[in-house]
């Protein structure tokens, strides 16, 4: 039985990753999950310098999901390399995908160049879709010209393959996927969070300090599957699918729709072993359905 998948020449032992920002750099969850068993660890977004993020409350529950407005708090790329990458050294079987954020093209470039010679970094995921950053972030991800341009810039400086992470808050996700492909992206990942809002009716005020937050969790899964399906039929670069994946069925759905690999985000918060549970569910499915190679199910539902 083969569970290996390859994206832009990088071979992952299996298609299960966790989603950026939901797993730190794996440290905290290593008490629950043997990181060496994951396809990849995808780190929390890293910027050129430390970012303080948004004021609290940053988190609120919504039905079958949550809103977050962390605002990309992170220690900056220096501390990240010294601490997080060093920590990840010990997990040789697992690939490391570093999620990169920035307020401007220059900031992305700075991070990408700092990471260029870090051997522990197998791939870069460029977050052009975080809805919680005012100046840059989502603006990039909602304009195809900007997507193509930033992709081209980042690609020209990056030593590792680059995955462009797309925002679902767009009229036509296919246009964004094609823009990333045109810019030279090695792969795309989707979906980032959908912008939502919750109001406290007793206090008559926003629940989140940031007013809006990014919605994630099982509630968004049908939208994510639709978008992955649309992109799979619009571009020929591989797709990392995510959004609400909670059970192995959700992951298989995403792969049938066209994802080469999948990321598990919010589910970690209520099931710290979600990634490995999903992996073993997929393995059982393969046995039951006589699937020799996981690659044979990618995108077969048309």
């Amino acid at each position: 039985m083969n569970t290996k998948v390859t994206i832009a020449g990088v071979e992952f032992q299996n298609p299960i990753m966790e989603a950026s920002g939901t797993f730190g750099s794996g440290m905290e969850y290593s008490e629950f999950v043997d990181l060496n068993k994951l396809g990849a660890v995808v780190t929390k977004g890293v910027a050129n310098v430390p970012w303080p993020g948004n004021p609290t409350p940053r988190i609120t529950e919504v039905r079958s999901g949550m809103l977050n407005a962390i605002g990309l708090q992170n220690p900056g790329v220096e501390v990240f390399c010294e601490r997080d990458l060093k920590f990840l050294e010990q997990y040789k079987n697992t690939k490391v995908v570093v999620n990169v954020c920035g307020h401007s093209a220059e900031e992305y470039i700075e991070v990408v160049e700092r990471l260029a010679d870090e051997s522990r970094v197998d791939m870069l995921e460029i977050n052009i879709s975080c809805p919680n950053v005012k100046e840059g972030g989502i603006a990039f991800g909602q304009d195809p010209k900007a997507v193509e341009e930033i992709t081209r810039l980042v690609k020209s400086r990056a030593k590792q393959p680059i995955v462009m992470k797309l925002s679902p808050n767009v009229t036509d996700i296919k246009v964004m996927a094609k823009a990333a492909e045109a810019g030279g992206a090695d792969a795309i990942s989707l979906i980032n969070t959908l912008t939502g809002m919750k109001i406290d009716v007793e206090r008559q005020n926003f629940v989140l300090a940031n007013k809006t937050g990014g919605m994630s969790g099982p509630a968004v899964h049908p939208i994510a599957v639709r978008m992955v399906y649309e992109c799979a039929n619009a571009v020929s670069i591989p797709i990392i699918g995510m959004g609400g994946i909670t059970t192995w069925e959700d992951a298989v759905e995403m792969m049938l729709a066209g994802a080469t690999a999948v990321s598990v985000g919010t589910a970690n918060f209520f099931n710290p072993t979600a990634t490995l549970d999903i992996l073993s569910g997929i393995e059982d499915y393969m046995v039951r359905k006589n699937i020799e190679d996981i690659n044979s199910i990618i995108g077969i539902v048309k």
Partner: protein
Amino acid sequence: MKIKEKAVVLWQEKLAEGVYSLTLETSIVDHAIPGQFISIFSNDGSKLLPRPISICEINKDYGTLRVVYRVVGAGTEKFSHLKMGDKIEVMGPLGNGFPLEGRNAIVVGGGIGVPPMLELAKQLPGTVTAVMGYRNNDLFLTEEFEKVVANLFIATDDGSVGIRGTVVDAMRENDLVADVIYACGPKPMLRAVADFALENQIRCYVSMEERMACGVGACLGCVCKSKEVDDHSHVNNKRVCKDGPVFLSTEVVL
């Protein structure tokens, strides 16, 4: 060592209007210390995030944990219907817990901040004075505190029991002194206790609250402002779930 597992409900009882005591059989007890908390999950697939609840009592002999909570929303409302034998998903122990210090300690609890002080009071090495604040005469846990502390002072908002006023009023009125104070309760109370401690040059630990998602330090959802740069992100944000919930009153912005 953190565990996520199905705990068995051994006992649940109502202590006061809307306040319940829940005793759970769970191996989380093996590593739990006072001031830590557990995440309790709902059986309802539409309510996914944990409800963080402080540990009120630890009984390693029986393998049980006790928590005391107030019904404030849909999640805690559902918990209040749990019956003996029911199973419920829990994760813990989470957070750092209280350091056990001092020869003379004051433990201060306000409202639903009272429960975590019980196990702390039991485990503290020195003499313990408890100061508890309630809204009115619908008290809870006071009898149990009486058994384990040297002195117990009560303050109520309406003056129906003990002193009319706040816990700090009670502390001032009784000229309480100590070499360490531990406090849990609403932010304004923590602020007042911290001020009192500063005035009197007493070391003071406060237990903080924030909305949580992961409960283990990964999501950065639950930060509070710290005076010094934090270890994780180097931006003066400490994670309540991981770096806390217990902080020195002087290291955080209250």
